[in-house]
């Protein structure tokens, strides 16, 4: 087990409502201490331990206490009771702006922000070009940031946070602000962080991001941790809380049994080749699914199924391990490789849905989706399929 980087034990946080706070001496004397105090527990007895290299998605309904938890972990808010310990340099992206001064230029804010995070100036000199390039600000870097749009604000803030080489990255629902191209860049950067073994904790309402990116999901509701574990389960738990787990009137989705987790699903053109995910029709497709059969009281044999889905989750084709040739009921890390000799003439970005079922009972054990895992660029016309056709035009 990797050593804990973040550990919170029995953390509770109480807020006193604003009206009861004597911010002026007069009120303090008139009201007296504690009179008319209304309290609100944003967090109650939260235990969270995050190990080195984990990527944790913190999800929950609005007002559940996610942001408060992040601020407590970031050392910005003091817990009313309990203990918090974080090892290493923390870069936090909380809400918009992350501590920019509007009067200063982008460049000056870079220096100030990096200094706050504990970076020496010569280090910032070295990183500056890279920060500016990543933030896509170009010459605008010398304009006061008060003239930036909210998207540009976040771009610069994110760029600083990822360039200061933090050990722990805390992100609060800011990735949604930039445009799609930037969001992709951010995700690529986060994946790079994951490979470098850094610890990431982010609050998000984008549940796909959790199943796609996280190694772990934590569901917070009413100030308490409701679930902590497999991202797919976390998402399922939250959907149950939110009541969005099934369309109105539809039967309840089968609950997942757990015991196996899907670590990754990677598409490449050659066996073990670079996982670009980009294909042309006719290319060979090597699909590698990595699973962990977890040790526990009950270990099941699993059948691994992959569904390639187009926009709107429309299934295009599916692959499955043959009966009796799936994951054995032995704990360990497994790679399942599917080979498709020629990619069909698909068109666009496709989702990989991975589901592991019990080999004997057929009950679902775990499920995970990977958005945009496969890109096929065949034609320029809309549609999932690129259909060649002979076209003639004649005068009738």
């Amino acid at each position, binding site marked *: 087990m*990797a*050593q804990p*980087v973040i550990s919170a034990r029995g953390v509770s946080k109480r*807020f006193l409502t604003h009206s009861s*706070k*004597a*911010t*002026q*001496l*007069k009120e*303090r004397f008139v009201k007296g201490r504690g009179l008319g105090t209304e309290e609100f527990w944003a967090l109650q007895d939260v235990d969270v331990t995050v190990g*080195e*290299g984990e990527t944790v998605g913190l999800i929950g309904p609005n007002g559940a206490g996610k942001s408060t938890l992040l*601020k407590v972990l*970031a*050392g*910005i*808010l*003091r817990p009313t009771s309990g203990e918090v310990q*974080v*090892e*290493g*340099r*923390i870069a*936090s992206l*909380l*809400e918009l*702006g*992350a*501590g*920019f*001064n509007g*009067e*200063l230029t982008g460049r*000056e804010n870079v*220096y*100030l*922000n990096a*200094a*706050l*995070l*504990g970076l*020496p*100036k010569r280090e910032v000199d070295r990183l500056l070009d890279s920060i500016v390039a990543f933030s896509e600000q170009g010459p605008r870097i010398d304009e*006061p940031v008060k003239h930036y749009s909210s998207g540009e604000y976040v771009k610069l803030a994110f760029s600083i946070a990822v360039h200061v080489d933090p*050990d722990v990255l805390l992100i609060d629902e800011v990735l949604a602000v930039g445009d799609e191209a930037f969001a992709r860049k951010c995700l690529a950067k986060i994946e790079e962080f*994951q*490979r470098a*073994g850094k610890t990431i904790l982010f609050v998000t309402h984008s549940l796909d991001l959790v199943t796609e990116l996280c190694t772990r999901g934590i569901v917070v509701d009413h100030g308490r941790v409701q679930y902590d574990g497999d991202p797919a389960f976390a998402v399922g738990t939250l959907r149950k809380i939110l009541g969005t787990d099934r369309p109105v009137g539809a039967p309840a989705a089968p609950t997942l049994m757990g015991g196996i987790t899907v*670590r*990754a699903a990677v598409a490449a053109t050659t066996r073990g080749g670079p996982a670009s995910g980009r294909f042309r029709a006719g290319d060979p497709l090597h699909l590698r699914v*990595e699973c962990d059969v977890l040790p526990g009281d009950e270990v099941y044999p699993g059948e691994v199924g992959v569904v390639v889905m187009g926009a709107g989750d429309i299934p295009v084709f599916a692959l499955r391990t043959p009966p009796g040739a799936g994951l054995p009921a032995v704990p360990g890390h497994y790679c399942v490789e599917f080979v498709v000799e020629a990619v069909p003439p698909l068109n666009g970005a496709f989702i990989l849905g991975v589901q592991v079922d019990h080999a004997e009972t057929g009950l679902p054990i775990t499920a995970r989706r990977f958005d945009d895992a496969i890109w096929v660029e065949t034609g320029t016309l809309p549609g999932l399929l690129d259909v060649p056709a002979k076209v003639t035009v004649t005068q009738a």
Partner: protein
Amino acid sequence: MSAPAESAPSQDRAALARARAAAQGSIRWELLSQLVRKDLKVKYQGSVLGFVWSLANPLFQLGIYYVIFTKVFTNPAPDFHVYLMAGLLAFGAFNTAVAGASTSVVGNAGLVKKVRFPLLVLPLSGVGFAMVQLGLQMPVLLVIALISGVNFFGPPLLLLVPALALLVLFSTALGVLVAALNVRYRDTSHFVELSMLIWFWLNPILYPAQLVKTAFDRAGLSDWFWLYFLNPMATVVSTFQRAVYQTPTYLDQGVSKDLLVDGGYVYYLRNLAIGFVLAGLLLLFARRTFTRLQADFAEDL
């Protein structure tokens, strides 16, 4: 993707992580200078004369008081403007430092609420800002003294060193205290502003300290004059004056008079010692108060 191996590099990384956590939590000179630079930039952003304005204020004060105290009321003390200048600059820096520190945490709410960093640098940056200003004002006003024919070079000038040190220490102590209190009680900064108006007159800036001494003597309390220097700023101001004003006695209609309360060194060093002890105690108290209150800053802002 494989889990990071539990090996030597991982141990190194843990040690590095601890060092970095410490760097993020301790007060660094670099951070302080960045914050001071930020305050300077923000203050003079968009003004044509920029930093000249920080010189204009003391120069005008000096000009006004000079006209009043040498032209409107006749004053036989020679080079009175040098005496005035020493006191005005010292107290002006103190005023700027404490006022700046008092609003430093509230004024940087955006940072306090979003980034983890040692919050104590905020009041320190307020003091730093005032000291940078003083550093620019001093040479200009010393040049004025030189132009008007006052030679202040000499051993007494060395007294500036401990006097400046006490000024920094005392401003820091008071600044840290009011910065912390101002988060919970926003009245603090207004209270500080008013207090400074009174405090100005508790120091021998526009009047000679000798005047107070004479009053003590007349009341038969000669042995109690040291009480006047329980105000560390009175010590700072009078030591500044001793350092640059080199004509301790002058003749007024044939009678020898003192503008300074003492023409030696020991007297000032004793007062400085009292000041250092008081300011040091205040700093300890202020730091404890700040540390106790700072955990709630992000919530109170």
